[in-house]
């Protein structure tokens, strides 16, 4: 039981990481392979404050979120100059430099890391086991709420315009640099909180916990589940984090799995297993539509499918689409 609780705690922390990367990559379209750097900055901030300054968990956690958010805004600066694959190179570089600083600067504990962190306390009661899991899940729920809230705001809409076309976004009055920095800051801040939880859960941290391969792992969770959705990164994180713990074979080949997932998803299902147009998600929606009594589940598709009611299994995908080659009414007269 204790093992399960600890695995679930890790999975919750990684779900937060996946969701936070999703804000940056899925919402704002900035592909980063350096997300573990933000995870690490949060963990080190929290750990250093606890060990060197004697802070308790709660203020250290808040500080980790804030510091990592600020670092995110700064480390997002390359995204203002470089795009696409060269941004990926730059974020990889950020990851290496950050880990090198942890490893080679004595202030950060060097290769020996930081040890001896206390578990958080609340009203004199120490959070461990189920208690810590509850804390991690609470933070996951908070992250889900933030992700959902951001997506519905004007900033969320601005992120989407930056992702889709930067020139058109500028023409709409969106300052592309401002919103890229927002995306980096929000994404990093959430990851920083995850780092703080991770540090205090383990009690000790080492530079290699935040290496480049971890960034790839987080990316593969987001890509596996479905970039841009809320369900995708959470499901991706839980599946890819829990599978290696319980299947011995998978556990030995954890990174082979992460790498293979990226390759296979890119080849066969780039939108992820639960992405909006993925095979599995369409099946699930069809099942849901059949089991659910009453009107169609989605209001937008209801309006459009009014003309052909009945057993259309995925109304949004069929009637909500105009054939690209289709001509408009005026042109048919000519």
């Amino acid at each position: 039981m204790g093992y399960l609780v600890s695995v679930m705690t890790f999975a919750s922390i990684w779900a937060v990481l996946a969701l936070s990367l999703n804000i940056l990559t899925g919402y704002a379209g900035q592909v980063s392979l350096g997300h573990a750097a933000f995870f690490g900055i949060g963990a080190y901030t929290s750990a250093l404050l606890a060990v060197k300054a004697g802070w308790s968990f709660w203020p250290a956690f808040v500080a980790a979120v804030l510091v990592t958010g600020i670092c995110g805004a700064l480390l997002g600066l390359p995204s203002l100059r470089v795009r696409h694959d060269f941004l990926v190179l730059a974020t990889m570089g950020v990851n290496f430099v950050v880990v090198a600083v942890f490893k080679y600067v004595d202030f950060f504990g060097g290769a020996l890391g930081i040890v001896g962190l206390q578990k958080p306390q609340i009203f004199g009661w120490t959070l461990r086991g189920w208690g810590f899991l509850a804390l991690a899940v609470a933070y996951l729920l908070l992250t889900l709420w933030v992700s959902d809230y951001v997506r519905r705001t004007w900033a969320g809409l601005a992120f989407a315009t930056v992702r889709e076309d930067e020139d058109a976004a500028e023409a709409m009055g969106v300052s592309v640099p401002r919103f890229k920095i927002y995306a980096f800051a929000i994404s990093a801040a959430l990851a920083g909180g995850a780092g703080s939880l991770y540090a205090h859960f383990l009690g000790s941290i080492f530079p290699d916990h935040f290496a480049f391969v971890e960034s790839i792992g987080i990316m593969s969770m987001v890509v596996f589940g479905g970039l841009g959705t809320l369900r995708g990164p959470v499901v991706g994180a839980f599946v890819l984090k829990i599978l290696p713990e319980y299947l011995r074979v998978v556990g030995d080949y954890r990174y082979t799995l992460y790498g293979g997932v990226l390759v296979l998803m890119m080849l066969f299902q780039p939108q992820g297993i639960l992405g909006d147009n993925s095979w599995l998600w369409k099946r699930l929606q069809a099942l849901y539509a059949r089991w659910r009594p009453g009107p169609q589940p989605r209001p937008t598709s209801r309006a459009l499918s009014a003309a052909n009611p009945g057993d259309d299994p995925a109304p949004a995908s069929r009637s909500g689409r105009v054939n690209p080659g289709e001509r408009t009414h005026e042109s048919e007269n000519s």
Partner: protein
Amino acid sequence: MTLWNILLDTLTQGSIYFLIAVGLTMVYGILKILHIAHAAVYTVGAGVGLAVFRLTGNFWAALAAAMVVSGAVGVLIYRGVYFYMLDQPRIVPLITSVGLFLLMQDLLQKPYLMGPYQHAFPAQDVFPSLTLPWGTVPSAQVMILVFTALTLGVLYGVFTRTRLGLAWQAAAMDRDMAGAVGVNLNRAIALNFLLGSALAGAAGVLVGVFYNSVYATMGDVPSYKAFVVIVLGGMGSVSGTVAASFLLALAETVLLSSVGYVLPRDAIAFLVLILVLMFRPQGLLGR
């Protein structure tokens, strides 16, 4: 550190960077893919070379086997994976490439392949060491320099004298147009991967001998450095890559011998990369 040592170090390191980066440059030139998995191909080359060397004791057989197997792996990666994503946004093959790299490197670390250990590659005495008026060139360095000089000559010949070289240059300028005027693109690209990967495999063997050490994660550092090189060299230009390889090696050597050890060599290279990407995105040597 004497001037002679700085020169020798620069030439050796620069040669190593060049041998690894030239494959990446050629792939980027034609396909515009940042082929991160190239690093794993380099490690495969070192591993195969060592295995054959242990079996036969013959360095040349080891080098040949490494080049053949690495070249084959490179072509396989192209035909099996990238081939299907040529029309996708560039980010798709890039993420794929990262996945491939992680997958291959994790497999290489398994006990039935290389395991998590360093293996010695005792083939240092294949070449004689060279004594010049200014100092001595150890045999492993003679080997690297000779191989690099030969490679440069062959590449120059291929690029300027053969139809294949012309096809590569045409494809690098405009892939669709090259296809339209009758270049057999698939063959040209496959051969591009074959040659670039074979050179990476050879580099793996040479580096393994030079440091007398072969291990599963040996691809990490040089491959990331190779990106620094191709960015510095102006993205896809082979001559730029040659210049950038030696420039980076010179900068690192001079910096290390004068300033000493602040951050590891690799972190410096990456800081340079980030700064160059931000302030001269067309590369130091680009136009």
